[in-house]
């Protein structure tokens, strides 16, 4: 009898504790974010005119692993000069970043693709609430194993290869060798960019193709597997793989900036609504020349500020 009573009691106690813990957590989180906002506002309000205003608060960013190293490095530098600011950068993937920023779990959602491309249909409203900050550009080049024997492929040839119509390199002017596709998963931002701007069409997976989810592994596989073809961001290219021209255009930084080479995409940092002071200062810092020509270039991205062309969600390119 006594045992039963204890049980009921502890169970009740546990659930109350568990519930209150949840409540506390939520309250705690909200409080911190709010504090961040109000603190920043409070400290900034009196010194609005001074550009060296003391910023404080915490910023949480999550999302794209392709953008993560850049955000981390810039965040370090930003925190060095703004001691009151604490920035945490998490990975998780573009989808995670967009979900979390749309649900206000994080302040910044990093993404390789436009939010509208991921948050579709029922979620379209969420995408509309997000504010885009394009901080860098990533260009993607088709690469092959060095022995495949081709140096350039046309759009149509790439489509034929990635849809499995062409299966031997000799059909596109290369060695007599079977083509091995090394792809990215269908949800990947890199794949979406490559398909929209290099192939111009979505492709179905081909039986026997290989999918890897990190650029490092893709590069390793292409370098090692005879007859392999895949695609990589420009910062990953080296002598272990053969970089192909696209329709005769070399995937160089200059060609991307001038708009001649079409296979590129923005790296986005989304905020939910207009950012608060601290977050805005951080994003503004991202677009300064110091970062754009320093860290961005150093880590193999292309500065968004130098692009001579711009592109909207629908993929329409306009000259600036």
């Amino acid at each position, binding site marked *: 009898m006594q045992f039963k009573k*204890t049980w009921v009691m502890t169970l009740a106690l*546990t659930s109350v504790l568990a519930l209150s813990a949840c409540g506390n957590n939520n309250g705690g989180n909200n409080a911190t974010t709010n504090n961040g906002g109000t603190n920043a506002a409070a400290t900034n309000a009196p010194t609005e005119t001074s550009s060296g205003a003391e910023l404080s608060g915490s910023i949480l960013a999550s999302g794209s692993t392709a953008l993560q190293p850049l955000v981390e490095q810039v965040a370090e530098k930003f925190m060095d000069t703004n001691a009151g600011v604490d920035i945490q950068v998490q*990975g998780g993937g573009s*989808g995670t970043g967009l979900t979390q920023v749309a649900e206000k779990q994080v302040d910044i959602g990093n993404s390789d693709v436009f939010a509208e491309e*991921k*948050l579709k249909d029922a979620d379209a409203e969420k995408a509309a609430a997000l504010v885009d900050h394009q901080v860098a550009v990533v260009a993607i080049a088709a690469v092959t194993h060095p022995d495949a024997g081709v140096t350039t492929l046309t759009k149509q040839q790439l489509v034929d290869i990635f849809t499995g119509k062409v299966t031997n390199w000799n059909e596109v002017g290369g060695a007599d060798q079977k083509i091995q596709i090394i792809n990215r998963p269908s949800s990947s931002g890199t794949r979406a960019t490559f398909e929209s701007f290099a192939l111009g069409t979505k492709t179905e997976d081909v039986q026997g193709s290989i*999918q*890897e*989810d990190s650029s490092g592994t893709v590069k390793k596989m292409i370098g090692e597997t005879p007859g392999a073809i895949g695609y990589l961001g420009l910062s990953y290219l080296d002598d272990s793989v053969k970089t192909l021209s696209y329709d005769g255009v070399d995937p160089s930084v200059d060609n991307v900036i001038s708009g001649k080479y079409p296979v590129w995409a923005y790296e986005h940092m989304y905020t939910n609504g207009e950012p608060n002071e601290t977050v805005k200062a951080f994003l503004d810092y991202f677009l300064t020349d110091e970062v754009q020509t320093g860290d961005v270039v150093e880590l193999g991205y292309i500065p968004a500020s130098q692009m001579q062309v711009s592109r909207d969600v629908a993929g329409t390119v306009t000259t600036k």
Partner: protein
Amino acid sequence: MKPKKARIEKHHIEDFIGRTYMSFCVALLIIIIVSMVYFVASKGISTFIGGDVTVSDFLFGTKWSPEGDTPSFGAFPFIAGSFLVTLLAALIASPLSLCAALFMTEIVPGWGKKLLQPVIELLAGIPSVVYGFIGLSVIVPFLRNTLPGQGIGVAAGALVLAVMILPTITSVAADALASLPQNLKESSFALGATRWQTISRVIIPTTFPAIMTGIVLGMARAFGEALAVQMVIGNAPFIPRSLFESASTLTSVITLGMGNTTMGSAHNNALWSMALVLMLMTFVFVFLVRLLERRNKI
């Protein structure tokens, strides 16, 4: 005679605190487990509610193209892939583990155990990403150079998994063999049986359910392993035509897609449905282990 007045003594308080603490921990554990099951189940079921995907489309459909213009969510290639690598891994690892366990307990109980035990425990402690990387750097190139295909595929995945589940099976089997009553063996020897006869006719049949428990536990680990398999299996969403062709498992598809999809999208929900399938499979494995333990009457 007056009834003795109940006094609260020190040990009562100790008992009460101890019991409350224990009950609290147990209750917390139960709440965590139940809420996790509920979470995965509710997310996993959402694919089939209101959508055009039926359970049989999902379980037996062979076309997986979640981002296509007409999305289709056939997860059968992944379910088949998971079972294929798991069974193959168990087939490779079981004989090795059984031999290692016999070696440690029957053949050379002295230095054999001293040498093998730490080695096997070490295998269990290696992180799966290391296994994956070794698989990618050693097993895949080896298979590519010696066998048809690109090295990547079910065979590579099964080999990596076999090494990973080796410690599980070995330690369970070794424990079972060690707990075998000495007199069983002694009577067998007394009847004139050789060591081989004793092992094959007495020891293995008696400990069979326990060995099977080890194998099932190993399979459960193999079924749930994600990272190492994902690195070497190739991840093409198809039922492979050979053991040396790129294939996928439930876990590899989930890890590839989860971060890149947004919560609530059809693709994301389908991944949760796979997580649900994985969880149900885990229940099956646990059930099997229980069943085997009941038969285990040493």
